[in-house]
C-alpha cells in the first residue's frame, strides 16, 4: 500500500526523515508564535520580517563565507529585528501608517538583499545555491545539521514563550493594564518580537522568504476557529503547522516535482478553509445551521401562537381554524402549510379536514408557555 511505503520511507529514508523533521519543527515553531502575531493584529509583520531577513543572510555569508545555516540564520535574525525596529520608529515618529511602513521596509530590505545576492554571485566559487534556497525554500535540500540548527533556534523560541507565557498573554490582551501592574511592556514586546523573528528565521530555509508569512498566519488563524482558550489555540496551531509541514514536505519530495514551499502553503490553506467552514461554534457551516434552526423554531412558535390566539377567541379552544386565516395572520411569510405539518408530527396540532387545523391539548399547553415567554 502506498501509505505504508510512505511511512516506511519516513522512518528509514534519511532524506525524507530529515525533510519531514525539518518541516515539523518549522510548523510547530511558526504555528505557536504566529498565534500571538495574529491575535495582536500583526499578521503581516511575519511577511515583512521574512523578506527583511534576506540582506542579513547574504551579509552573514559575505562576512563568514560560511553556508552553515546557524550563521546565516543569525544574520537573518539581526536583519529581521532591525527591520522591525525601523518600522516601529517610522510609525511612532511620522504620520506614516503601519501598513505603509510594513510594505516600505519589506520591499526595500528585500531589494537591498537582492542587490547583495546578485553581487555575491560574482564572488569566485561562491556557489550560491545554498543562498537561493532561502528565497524559495528547499526542504528537500535540508541536511541533518540544518535541521539541528532549526531545532536549536526553535527550541530557544519555544522556551522563551513558555517562560514568558503570562507576560505575552498580558501584552496581547491588555498591555495598558500590564503596564499598570509594573511590567515593562516595551521590553515584553521586544521579547515577543524577538521570538517571532526566530520562528520566521527557522522556517526560511524550508519554505522560503516569500511564503514564510503564510506559516505564521495560517496555522494560527485555523486554530483560532476551534477553541476559545489561548493555550489550546497555541497547541493546535503548532499541530496544524507541523501537520502541514510534514504532509507538504512528503508530497513535494515524493517525486511529484512540486516545490516544497508552495505545497506546504497549499496544505495549510486547506486546513484553514476546513476550519473556517467546519469548526464548531464559530465555523460558517455551524453558524448557518444554527441560524436555520432558529429561524425554523421562530416560525413554528409563531404559528403555534397564532393558533393559540384564535383558540382563546373562540369558546371551544380545540375548535379547528382554516389555514388561510393563519396565513393572513403571518402576513404572507409563507411556509405555513409546512410548519403545520411539522407541528402535527410533534402532536401539537391536529388536522381536522383538508384545510382546517386545531390545537391538541399538548399544543395548547405549549402555546401557553410560548406566549408567556414572549410577553416576558
Amino acid at each position: 500500500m502506498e501509505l505504508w511505503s510512505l511511512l516506511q520511507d519516513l522512518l528509514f529514508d534519511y532524506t525524507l526523515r530529515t525533510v519531514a523533521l525539518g518541516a515539523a519543527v518549522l510548523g510547530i515553531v511558526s504555528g505557536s508564535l504566529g498565534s500571538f502575531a495574529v491575535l495582536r493584529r500583526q499578521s503581516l509583520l511575519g511577511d515583512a520580517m521574512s523578506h527583511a531577513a534576506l540582506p542579513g543572510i547574504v551579509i552573514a555569508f559575505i562576512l563568514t563565507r560560511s553556508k552553515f545555516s546557524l550563521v546565516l540564520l543569525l544574520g537573518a535574525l539581526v536583519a529581521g529585528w532591525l527591520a522591525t525596529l525601523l518600522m516601529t520608529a517610522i510609525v511612532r515618529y511620522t504620520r506614516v501608517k503601519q501598513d505603509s511602513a510594513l510594505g516600505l521596509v519589506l520591499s526595500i530590505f528585500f531589494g537591498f538583499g537582492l542587490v547583495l545576492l546578485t553581487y555575491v554571485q560574482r564572488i569566485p566559487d561562491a556557489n550560491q545555491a545554498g543562498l537561493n534556497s532561502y528565497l524559495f525554500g528547499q526542504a528537500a535540500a535540508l541536511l541533518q545539521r540544518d535541521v539541528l540548527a532549526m531545532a536549536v533556534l526553535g527550541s530557544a523560541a519555544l522556551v522563551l514563550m513558555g517562560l514568558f507565557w503570562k507576560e505575552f498573554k498580558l501584552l496581547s490582551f491588555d498591555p495598558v493594564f500590564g503596564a499598570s501592574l509594573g511590567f515593562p511592556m516595551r521590553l515584553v514586546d521586544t521579547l515577543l518580537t524577538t521570538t517571532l523573528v526566530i520562528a520566521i528565521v527557522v522556517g526560511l530555509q524550508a519554505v522560503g522568504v516569500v511564503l514564510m508569512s503564510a506559516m505564521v498566519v495560517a496555522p494560527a488563524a485555523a486554530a483560532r476557529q476551534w477553541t476559545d482558550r489561548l493555550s489550546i489555540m497555541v497547541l493546535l496551531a503548532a499541530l496544524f503547522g507541523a501537520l502541514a509541514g510534514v504532509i507538504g514536505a512528503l508530497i513535494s519530495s515524493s517525486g511529484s516535482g512540486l516545490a516544497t514551499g508552495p505545497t506546504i502553503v497549499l496544505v495549510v490553506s486547506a486546513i484553514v478553509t476546513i476550519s473556517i467552514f467546519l469548526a464548531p461554534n464559530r465555523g460558517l457551516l455551524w453558524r448557518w445551521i444554527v441560524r436555520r434552526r432558529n429561524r425554523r423554531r421562530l416560525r413554528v412558535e409563531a404559528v403555534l401562537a397564532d393558533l393559540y390566539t384564535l383558540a382563546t377567541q373562540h369558546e371551544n379552544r380545540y375548535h379547528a381554524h382554516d389555514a388561510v386565516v393563519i396565513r393572513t395572520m403571518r402576513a404572507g411569510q409563507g411556509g405555513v402549510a409546512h410548519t403545520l405539518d411539522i407541528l402535527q408530527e410533534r402532536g401539537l396540532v391536529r388536522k381536522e379536514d383538508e384545510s382546517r387545523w386545531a390545537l391538541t391539548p399538548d399544543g395548547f399547553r405549549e402555546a401557553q408557555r410560548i406566549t408567556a415567554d414572549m410577553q416576558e
Partner: protein
Amino acid sequence: MSLTQIEIQLIATVVAVACALPGVFLVLRSMAMMSDAISHTVLLGIVIGFFIVEDINSPLLIAGAAVMGLITVSLVELLNRTRLVQEDAAIGLVFPALFSLAVILISRFAGDVHLDSDAVLLGELAFAPFDRLVIAGSDVGPVALYTMTGVLLLNLTFILIFYKELKLATFDAALAAALGFSPGLIHYGLMGLVSITAVGAFDTVGSILVVALMIAPPVSAYLLTDRLTTMLGLSAVFAAIGAITGYWVAHWLDANIAGSMAMMLGLIFGVVFLFAPERGMVALAQRRARQKWEFAQAALTIHLLNHEGTPAAAQENRVEHLSHHLRWQPPFAAEVVQRAQRHGLVERHNGYLALTDDGRQLARETLMLAT
C-alpha cells in the same frame, strides 16, 4: 551610453512612475499591503489565462490578471466579513495561497513556457530591451516600453478623469457616498488599476519590488506635503530618480537592477525621513528642543496664575520651591525662570515670582487654546 542602456533607463523610469501614481492612493487609504497581495496573485490570473488562450503574449492575459487582482481584493473582504479573521490575517491568508497555486500550476503544467517563479518574483530588467516590438518588419523599440507606457497613460487618464471622486473617496468615504459617488466603484477601479500595473511591471521588476515602487515614493512624498497634487507629482519625481540612479548603481555593482532601484528609493526615503523640513527627524528634534522651553515657560506662567492671590501663593511661588513643586531639576528651573524674565513674562520680587501682564495673558491664552 549605448542604446540598450538608454532603453533600460527609459523602461525603468516609466515602470516606476506608473507604479507610484496608484501607490499614492494605496498609501493614503491605508491599503499598502494590498499591493503586496495583488502583485503576487496576478500571477495566478496569468497562468489561468494562459491555460485558456495558450498564448503567452496574448493581451487577454493582462485582463485575466486584472480580474484575479479584483478577486483577491474581494476574497480578502469576504474573509474579513465573516469576522472569523482580522483584515491583516485575511490578506496574509489569501495571497500566499493563490500565489502557491500559481507556482504549482506553472511547475506542473507549463514548465516549458517562459514563466518561471524566479523571474516572476525578481524580474530582470536587463533583458527587457531584447524583446522587440516589430511592426511591418521594422523594429520600433522594446515591447516593455510600449506596454508600460500604455499602463502609465491608463493610470494617468484614470486619475485625471476621476480625480475629484478619488480624492473624496480617499479622504471622506462617507461624504462621497452621500454625494452619490460610489466609493465601492472607485475602490474597485483603483484595485483594477493596481492589478494591471502590477502585471505590467512584474515582468520587468518582479512582484516583490513592485511593492517598493508603489509604496516608497508616495510614502516619501507624504512626509513632504499635504496636497494631493503635490504628492502625486513628488512621487513621480522620486520614482524617476530612483529608477535612474538605481540603474547606474546596479550597472556599477553588476547587480539586479530592480533591487537596486528599490534600494535607491529606500535611500530617498531615508533622506526624507531624516531631513524633511517639518516632519523629518532632525526638524522634529529641533522643534522639540525649542518647544521644551516654550512649553516650560507656559507651564510656569500657568502655575503662577493658578496660585495667584491664594493663601498658598507665598509657598508655591518662591523661586527656590519651584523646582520642587514642578519636579524640575534646579538648573532647568533656573533656566526657565531666566528665560521667562527675559521675555517679560515674570518678575522677581525679593525671592518671589510674580506674573507680568504679558505672562498672565500667555497663561490665559494657552489655557484657552488647549480647551
